[in-house]
């Protein structure tokens, strides 16, 4: 029985997930629009003039990214669970954490990247000084995948539950607190003229840890959830 190489299965899963996201564009756009709406609420809710907004801009964008990723992550495994593809994934002779990693990358490309690309525009709307843009984009680039991968553990644990009770958010949001802290610190630090490299390095370390450990935990969580 010639078994297909793990890389081939990885690419096949990645391609398949991207294809599904393209065919189900609205499922992907909704969280993105939610992100835009949430960010534009703050100037109305708090105060329009720049001096105030400038201080909270980084935090607002980061918190909106966290909430939007909760919504978009919800669909990560749900449709595969309901139509049985998740069982096929478990029964493939390929290492499960690798296929889970492929799904995480596909999810990040589709829902994480657009947020990062549009964040400077939103930062401008929140009158964040231009000096903060590079730090913001870099911190999002490093932090959003961490939120996605750690969150996918919680998604895998609650895959059988459907979305009732929003239990995913209760479990996943506290876990992304460190990323939020260092993400906002990086931007504020660069605004104050100091170099944000220290915090970006910390975020990079978190990304490395999450990329290596989270898929293994997610694979274990999927096996547990499907043993129901």
């Amino acid at each position: 029985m010639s078994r297909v190489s793990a890389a081939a299965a990885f690419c096949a899963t990645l391609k398949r997930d991207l294809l599904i996201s393209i065919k189900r564009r609205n499922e992907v756009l909704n969280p993105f629009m939610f992100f835009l709406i949430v960010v534009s609420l703050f100037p109305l809710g708090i105060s329009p003039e720049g001096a105030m907004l400038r201080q909270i801009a980084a935090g607002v964008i980061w918190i909106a990214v966290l909430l939007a990723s909760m919504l978009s992550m919800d669909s990560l495994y749900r449709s595969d669970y309901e139509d049985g593809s998740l069982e096929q994934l478990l029964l493939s002779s390929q290492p499960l954490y690798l296929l889970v990693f492929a799904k995480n990358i596909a999810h990040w490309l589709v829902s994480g990247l657009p947020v990062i690309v549009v964040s400077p525009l939103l930062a401008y709307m929140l009158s964040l000084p231009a000096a903060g843009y590079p730090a913001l984009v870099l911190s999002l680039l490093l932090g959003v995948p961490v939120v996605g991968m750690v969150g996918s553990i919680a998604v895998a644990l609650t895959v059988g539950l459907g979305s009732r009770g929003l239990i995913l958010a209760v479990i996943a949001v506290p876990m992304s607190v460190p990323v939020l802290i260092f993400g906002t610190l990086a931007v504020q630090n660069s605004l104050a003229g100091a170099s944000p490299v220290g915090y970006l390095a910390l975020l990079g370390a978190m990304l490395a840890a999450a990329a290596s450990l989270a898929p293994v935990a997610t694979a274990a969580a999927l096996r547990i959830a499907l043993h129901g």
Partner: protein
Amino acid sequence: MAGRWQWLHRLGSPRWFYATTTRWLPWLAGAMALLLAVGTVWALLYLPPDYQQGDTSRILVVHVAVAGASLSFFPLMAVAGTVTLVWRIKLADMVAKNAAPLGAWFSFLTLATGSIWGSVSWGTWWEWTDSRLVSMLFQFFLLLGVISLRAALDNSATAARACALLSIVGCINVVVIKYSVQWWNTLHQPPSPISMQVGSPNGPEFWVATAIMAVAVYLFLALSLILATRNEILERESKAQWVRELALGAT
């Protein structure tokens, strides 16, 4: 090989746990009551008031003891979770299932006593720049997450192993949160008139009273957890013969 595992599985059998705890419960309860009484009387009556905080230092005795005990819940649940996942010993899951609500209560009490003490020493009931209190808040949220996952999953076998995994991941997370909040705290130190970091009261008496209270609280933690686990055993093993005899004998 069978001998070693035999010992482990005998250790994990609910009946063995029930029998052993029946023997040790009276001693545990007695020791706890004694130490609790000594600690309370010492803290309330015999502790000299601190020159800076006055009599509110008596609050710290309880706060520090309860805070120390509540920090041990996630490691306890992570170890019980590992045992559940690797060796599938039901007893470990029973302990972990009852540890989560107790841990939430401990965290809540730590937050309550901390903010009551803070209302005097810091002048505010909640202080974001105290990293211990903020990380305790997020430990409280993570514990509530484990409890709500346990309640949401109806199949008890899946719930046991899912909560085990979440406890392990949560335990790592509590540690990371603690240090990131501490790091964040050192940067956001507002230049306030009185120094935020009010030192803990000096003098050996304070630390001896707190040590006694801490041991008393740990004994209480063990006692409460054992009582809850014994109830869990009675419910899960209700069809077993020895439980039936126990029930008939007891009433």
